[in-house]
Structure formats: C-alpha cells, structure tokens
C-alpha cells in the first residue's frame, strides 16, 4: 500500500514502538504510586514531557500537559478559557479551522458567545487586516491554526500573535496539530499562549496529545479527579502512549529529510497539474506558504470519492474533501471558504506525504492517476466543460 494520507494519521514509527514496548510488557505500575515501579513510570512520563517541550520550544516543562488527543487539547484551551473568564465571550477564529475548533466555536455561538469568523481568500490565506479590525480590547480568545489540514496552508502565527498582543488582552490559542513535526516551531519566540498538538500526526500512536499552556495562563482542569498532570488533567496517565509521543518528538527533531519529502510533493504536484487537464491546485502556488508535505488538487467535474476508490484499488491511499464522505453530506468547509467552485470542490483530493514515502511510490501514483481520472472524465456528463478545459490547456502548452 502506498500511503499518501499522512495528514489523516501516520504509521507508528518503529523507533516509537521500540520505546513504548517495555511499558506495554515488562515495565508497569501507576506513575502516581510512591513505590519504585511507580517512580519508574513517573520518570518515563517526565522524560517524555522534556522531549515534547524541546520539539515545540516550550520555556518550562510545566507548560506541557498531556491529553488524549488534539481535539481534547483544543476543547480544553477554548472551553477552559471561557470557563475561567465567563465575561470575556468574544471569540475570533477562522472559517477553515479543523472541526475540533470550528464546531466547538459554532456550539459556543449557539450558547451565547460572540464569534467573529475570519474569512480566507481564494488561496486559503488570511487577511491580517481583518484580524486587526475584529480585535477589541476585551476580546477573550483568538484561536487560529498553524497549518490547515486540508490544504497545508500555513498561517503566520508570529505576525498574528503580535497583532493580538498589540490590539487586545486576548489569549492566543494555536491549533498546531497538523504542523508539529512538519515545520520548526519555537514557542519561546512566539506570542502564543496555548498550543494544541496530537501524537498520531507525527508517528506516535493514536490516543495521546498535549496542550501547551504558557506559564501565567490559568485554565480550570479539563478532567476533575486525581492529581495527575499537577491537578490539571486527572485520569491515570497513559504512560506507554505518552512515552510514544516523547519518542516521536525526539524522532521529529532529528528528522532531516523534510527537503526530500518536499521534493517528492513538488514532483507529484507539478506532474499532475501539467498532465491532467482538469486538475487545479487548491492553495497558494507559492509553496513556502504551505506545509512541505501537502498538496490539495481538484479534478474538476468528476467526483473525488470515485478517484479515492479507484486509487485505493490501485493501492494508493489518499483522502477527499468532497460530498458524502463517511456520514457528512457536504463539500469541505475549507474549500467553500476559499470559494472553490462547487464542481471543483467535489473533485478534490488531498495527497499528504510522510517520512516513509519513496520516489518510486510517487512515480507509481503518477502512472496510475491519469488513467483513473481519464476514466471518470469519460463518464462525466460535463463533457463540454471538460472539452473546453482540455483545449485551454493544450493552447496554453503550445504557447
């Protein structure tokens, strides 16, 4: 299987599994226990905390709290802030956040919070002036992602943090789930108060995440119970998963093949766009504004789900933002926010590469994809539109 769906999840790295294995076999104990077995587990958790703090550039270890997933971290950050500051009910976020933030903010709007939704342009980028205008002195929290999960578009959280500080007393939360491990992050140098990450996006297992809480920011506990995580998040620590997250962060810090992945992504993107007439890029053509591993391409006038099924048959895993995926019957809110025409949003495919992808895999994908798209183009009732695209492309290339 060729796995080009690394923004959905990643395989557990063998190094990560090796680090976890003792904690699933011979080494056991409750990290809250005072005996030697417990202390050993506690030490493993604290070592993992150091590794996470190092990867994201947290100034203090106490700023890193383990959670069960990225969505929990996001929910805790925003929900916790509002619980702590019930009168500061103005929230600013974007139209293109992950569901963990977007659906939470929609819910909060329904129960009396005021939410300002920042729009994006056709490339999926924010206009920082919109943020400047939306901010008020008493804005409670600003929640903006670092990297978009569908398009890979990076938001300039350095500039955004400065604007937030300058214009308001708001707390700045960043959903960093899709970015950690793919781009360098140094929270010491950023005006970021809260930062969510998830283990399974960087080759740790599913079921573990973390929330960075800058020292001085008060959040009520997410789970009330025992004294785990300094009383901030009760529940027996998932030691093996936490160790896995730590090992994955260490692996990410030493990973030096980002350029190789970027080169493969560029090859995939360039060849698809130049050889398939109905292909169009969703996102800024300037690749420095995107994650190095992601390309989101629409195949106009055909159904993305059908491309996915055919690619799956051919042994290639991708994802689609189009209608009817799983149980949701609508096109991707991110692509809609970018004003991608409906007939293109329907045919969108996200290719997200990872550390284990090889050039041979990209070549194979490029070999099978044109025939798959061609077959669906032949089946499409939009024959005139497709013919027009084909002619436009061939006149472009003959120029």
């Amino acid at each position, binding site marked *: 299987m060729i796995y080009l769906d690394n923004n959905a999840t990643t395989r557990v790295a063998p190094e990560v599994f090796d680090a976890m294995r003792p904690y699933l076999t011979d080494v056991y104990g409750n990290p809250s226990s005072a005996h030697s077995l417990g202390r050993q587990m506690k030490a493993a958790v604290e070592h993992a905390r150091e590794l996470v703090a190092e990867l994201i550039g947290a100034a203090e270890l106490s700023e890193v709290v383990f959670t069960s997933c990225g969505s929990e971290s996001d929910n805790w950050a925003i929900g916790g802030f509002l619980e702590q500051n019930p009168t500061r009910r103005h929230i600013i976020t974007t139209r293109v956040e992950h569901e963990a933030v977007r659906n939470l903010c929609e819910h909060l709007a329904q129960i009396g919070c005021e939410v300002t939704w920042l729009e994006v342009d056709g490339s999926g980028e924010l206009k920082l002036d919109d943020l400047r205008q939306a901010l008020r002195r008493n804005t409670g929290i600003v929640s903006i992602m670092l990297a978009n999960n569908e398009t890979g578009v990076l938001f300039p959280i350095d500039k955004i943090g400065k604007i937030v500080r300058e214009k308001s007393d708001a707390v700045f939360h960043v959903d960093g789930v899709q970015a950690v491990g793919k781009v360098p992050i140094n929270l010491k140098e950023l005006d970021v108060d809260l930062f969510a990450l998830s283990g399974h996006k960087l080759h740790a297992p599913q079921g573990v995440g973390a929330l960075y809480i800058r020292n001085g920011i008060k959040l009520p506990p997410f789970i009330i119970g025992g004294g785990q995580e300094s009383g901030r998040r009760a529940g027996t620590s998932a030691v093996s998963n936490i160790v896995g997250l730590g090992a994955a962060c260490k692996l990410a810090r030493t990973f030096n093949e980002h350029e190789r992945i970027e080169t493969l992504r560029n090859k995939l993107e360039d060849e698809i766009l130049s050889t398939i007439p109905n292909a169009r890029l969703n996102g800024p053509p300037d690749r420095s504004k995107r994650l190095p591993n992601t390309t989101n391409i629409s195949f106009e*006038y*055909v*159904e993305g*789900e*059908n491309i996915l*099924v*055919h690619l799956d*048959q051919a042994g290639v895993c991708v994802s689609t933002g189009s*209608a*009817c995926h799983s*149980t949701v*019957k609508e*096109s991707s809110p991110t692509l809609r926010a970018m004003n991608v025409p*409906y*007939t293109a949003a*329907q045919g969108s495919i996200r290719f997200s590469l990872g550390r284990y992808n090889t050039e041979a895999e990209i070549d194979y994908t490029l070999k099978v994809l044109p025939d798959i798209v061609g077959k669906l183009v*032949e*089946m*499409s*009732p*939009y*024959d005139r539109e497709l013919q027009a695209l084909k002619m436009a492309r061939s006149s472009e290339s003959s120029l």
Partner: protein
Amino acid sequence: MQHTADTVAQLFLSPRNVGDVAEPSFVGRSASFQCGATLRISLHVDESQRITEAKFKAAGCSVLVASASLLIDQVIGRTTGEAAALAQQGELLQKKLGALPAERSECPALAGAALVAAIGKYSDSVRDDWEGDEALICTCFCVSERTIEREIQQRELRTVAEVTAACNAGAGCRSCYSLIEDMLEEVNGKWK
C-alpha cells in the same frame, strides 16, 4: 446473480452502459441539490415504444454510478411505460443494490429521475410528431383508440395494467385510466 453489498463496488469499478447513445436520442437529466451529483441518460426507442439502447454519464458517488448502471440493464428491451414505472420504484433498485448507508438512500431515485426525464422527452416528441387523425386516448404516449382496441382484442387483455404493458397506454399521467377501463369493458363485453 446474487446481489450483495459488493454489488455497488463491482458495478462502480466496472460500470456498464456508460456513454451517450448516438443522436438522435432522447436525453434526460437529474441532479441532487444535496450532494451536487449530476446524471444524464440517453435513449433510443423503437416504433413499438421499446427501449433498444440506453447509456448514462454521471458525476456522482459510486452508488449513483451503480444505480444508473443497473437501472439501464433492467430497462433495455422494455416499453417506455414499463421502464418509467420501474424507474419510479426506487425501492426495487435499492433492493438489488443491497444495504445502502442512510446518506446514500436517495441515489437510486436520482438515477430513476433521469430515466423518467428521458422517457418524458420521448413522449413529448411522440406527441409533437403525432399526425394521425384517430382519437388519442393516452396523450402522454400518443396511443390511439384504435391501437388500444386492437391490442385488447388481439392479446385478449383483461386489465389496464395489461394494456399498459402491451402498448404503453396509461403509463404516464394516468388520466386515461378510466377510458381504458371503459374500453376493456366494451371490447370484452362484445366478445362475450
């Protein structure tokens, strides 16, 4: 063929009846405002009102592709009236496709709607081309009194459904239903 949950996958991966029949043809379209799927079905119909050839083109999910593929298989060789009746019974198609997830339950109906639209184009054209001077009973499919009488007599038909199956009369809006009943009574009465 035993239809299982894999039917959709099989029909999707190797769809039958894809394309457009040669012109002149009768073309019907359907689209879903919910999911954005669109479908086009084109037909050839012979002088005895039977569908001799049909093809489809779709931009929609695998269930829609499978539905159109299967529906067309089932209507080739049938009269347009029979085909229209079949196309409007979404549950028949659904049964053949196997269990569908709830959010795909409308897809077979979308295939049916395009076929009914194509048959509608056919009946429009038959009506437009009608040059006969006989009394028309079924105005949807331009079936004359003489044709219905002949069919009832020659085939010894007893019910309106038999008449519809034989010559299409009554397959559209059904406003001629009672007229056909009267004719059945009259002809069969004479024969007694």
